[in-house]
């Protein structure tokens, strides 16, 4: 596998919940800019934990420890302020979480209002329209922008959350099983959207759905019991995995 222009790099990254249990063990991998990279593995393998570490979500929970390095454009984000890092590395969660007290319009702008950034009316309108168009939601909601985001369907809510993350113009977008709570049609929409987005943003997506990884990603990681077992071009991994455990997982004998 060839890396031309990596943006994000894990260097011997470890995540532990307590002294005894290490959820992610010495993962080293570099993520290529403007591609989609999938992380697969059976549940409990540490894939979500690794992803959340890249957004410094662990900083919210005092019992979680991250060691090693995670580099963004060569800078170690583990020694940076979380609020700074999270603006550059956005995140979309498993369950869509539109803020229930905010309208659709305000949800898209939530990152700005949370961070206390004042925008002019025209800037706000521009961002909302652009981001909602980016996630193909504009035509569906342009007449109900003042309604609460929670009125939307699950798939629409998830697209709203992606729009909300994109509004902050992140360089990397982390997605933690973004379609696992959605029906197949909504899933298809989101997958199309992700493929569309890779020209603007680097996407790292956790999925337990092998089909999904195969459909959208150009590179894939396979994690097992906290180890990064294999990391390769998706095509190569699915056709000819090097590790026995990867083969077992991909052929459905494990997981």
């Amino acid at each position, binding site marked *: 596998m060839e890396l031309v222009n990596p943006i994000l790099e894990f260097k011997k990254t470890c995540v532990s919940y307590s002294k005894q249990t290490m959820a992610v063990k010495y993962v080293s991998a570099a993520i290529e800019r403007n591609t989609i990279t999938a992380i697969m593995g059976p549940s409990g393998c540490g894939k979500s934990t690794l992803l959340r570490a890249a*957004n410094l*979500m662990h900083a*919210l929970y005092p019992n979680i420890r991250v060691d090693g390095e995670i580099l963004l454009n060569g800078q170690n984000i583990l020694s940076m302020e*979380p*609020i*700074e*890092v*999270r*603006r550059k590395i*956005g*995140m979309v*969660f498993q*369950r869509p*979480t539109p*803020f*229930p*007290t*905010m309208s659709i319009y305000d949800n898209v702008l*939530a*990152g700005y*209002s*949370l*961070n*206390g950034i004042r925008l002019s009316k025209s800037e706000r309108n521009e961002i909302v329209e652009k981001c909602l168009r980016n996630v193909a939601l504009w035509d569906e909601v342009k007449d109900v922008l003042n309604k609460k985001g929670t009125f939307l369907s699950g798939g629409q809510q998830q697209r709203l*959350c992606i729009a*909300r*993350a994109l509004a*902050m113009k992140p360089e990397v977008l982390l997605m933690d099983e973004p379609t696992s709570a959605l029906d197949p049609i909504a899933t298809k929409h989101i997958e199309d959207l992700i493929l569309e987005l890779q020209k603007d943003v680097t996407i790292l997506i956790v999925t337990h759905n092998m089909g999904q990884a195969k459909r959208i990603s150009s590179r894939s990681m396979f994690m097992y019991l906290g180890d990064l077992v294999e990391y390769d071009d998706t095509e190569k991994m699915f056709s000819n995995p090097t590790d026995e455990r990867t083969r077992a997982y991909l052929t459905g004998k494990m997981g």
Partner: protein
Amino acid sequence: MSDKLFRIFLFIAACLIPIICGGIIYALVTDAYESFEHFGFLNFIFSSEWDYTEGNEQYGALPFIVGTMMTTFLALLFCIPFSLPVALFVGEYFKGTPVAAILSTVTDLLAGIPSIIYGLWGFFTLRPIIMALDISPEGSSILTASMVLSIMIIPYAASLSAEFIKMVPADLKEGAYSLGATRFEVIRKIVFPVAGSGIFSSYILAIGRALGETMTVTMLIGNTNQIPDGITATGNSMASIIANQFGEADGLKLSSLIAIGLILFLITAVINMIGKIMIKRARIS
């Protein structure tokens, strides 16, 4: 025991509650009637005369309604800067940790202290301070009573608010953090709006408590029967005038005191019902 008999027992026990409540309203209304008839209902409420010279008896509830409103409002005002931090401490910053358990035990114990002991403390400790600071000459005042009252309602407001703050879903908060917000920003823009109606209703219930608090206020408010002309003036609340004068009252005065009791009962009942209904709504959403 047969099933039928058991069901009847349960039903009778349940009937007792509406009977007691109906009895309370009936007794208050019939005994307050004499006063309302003599002075007129509206006149009674809006009159500020309280004169028991025989032959020229004049009773009006306004000074005590105003006194109650002032003490309650001030108590609420003084309570917020403490109860809200306690709620955030227990429900957000240190949620589920031993320090939070200690603080909630402390507030539980505050709620357990009998009101007469709060009154003593206010009288023997706070009142001299108020006097030394030259805020009010005798130390007893609306302000003194409100300050102690505010301590008494902190536990009620804080523990319920904390419950609603705890219920704000973690994924919402993580969603906000992932956009680069600080904890303060998450609390201000996500936690407060989401838990808002629940927090608000917990303050309504705290108001309900403050309205009827008797002994503390009686011991600290100064017990004068005119409309207080400021927060450092003396006065009387509806509960304190009853506590003060019920013992030696009869005839029209007794009826007037019971009429004040009826008004207090109705105000508290309305406030408590609004609070309970809001809490139920907030819990469902």
